[in-house]
């Protein structure tokens, strides 16, 4: 089953959560990344996400596979938006379920960190002063 997905329509967190359910799971941990109205002291009005789709799909699946091998999970999923987003929109959703909470918290944190570090997706921020810029963080 596909566990990582790029999507050009809004993410429905409640619908995604249903994909984590498992009779042996004692709970789930989810992370929602939202579009915020500022970055490094500049006012942000909206942003665009661009992805190298084929590779992003592969890399996202690899990360979730690694998470399932590293942590004792019952389910792990991630959805990332592409296209134009407004302030407050959900940009990314990560969810895991596990028998115990320690594993679930650690795995969810690990997945979002790896997605941000590895998956070929780029953010173009549009600023209140009319400028825009692609973000290419050095870390």
């Amino acid at each position: 089953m596909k566990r990582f997905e790029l999507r050009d329509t809004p993410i429905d967190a409640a619908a995604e959560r249903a994909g984590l359910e498992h009779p042996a799971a004692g709970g789930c941990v989810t992370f929602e990344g939202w579009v915020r109205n500022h970055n490094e002291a500049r006012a942000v009005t909206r942003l665009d996400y661009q992805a190298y789709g084929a590779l992003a799909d592969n890399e996202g699946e690899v990360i979730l596979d690694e998470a399932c091998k590293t942590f004792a999970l019952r389910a792990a999923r991630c959805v990332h938006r592409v296209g134009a987003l407004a302030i407050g929109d959900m940009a990314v959703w990560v969810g895991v379920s596990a028998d115990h909470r320690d594993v679930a918290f650690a795995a969810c944190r690990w997945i979002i960190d790896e997605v941000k570090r590895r998956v070929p997706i780029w953010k173009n921020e549009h600023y209140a002063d009319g400028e825009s810029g692609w973000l290419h963080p050095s870390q």
Partner: protein
Amino acid sequence: MTYKLLYFASLADRAGRAEELRDTNARNPRDLYDEVAREHAFAFAPERVRVAVNGAMVGWEHALADGDEVVFLPPVSGG
């Protein structure tokens, strides 16, 4: 040989295009990046760039084949 290059984010802005067909003597990603980075004035040193060929990550010395799809990936900013 001829390669299909795809550009993303600021590299697409610098190159003024999202893709190009390039006839070149370069036989590996390192030489190809040298060539296009000079031509399009890319700001990133190779140390900050990753390479994908035909949808899979490869090293800088990977042997390219005619018709390969080559993508130079600048630092990512998803999430």
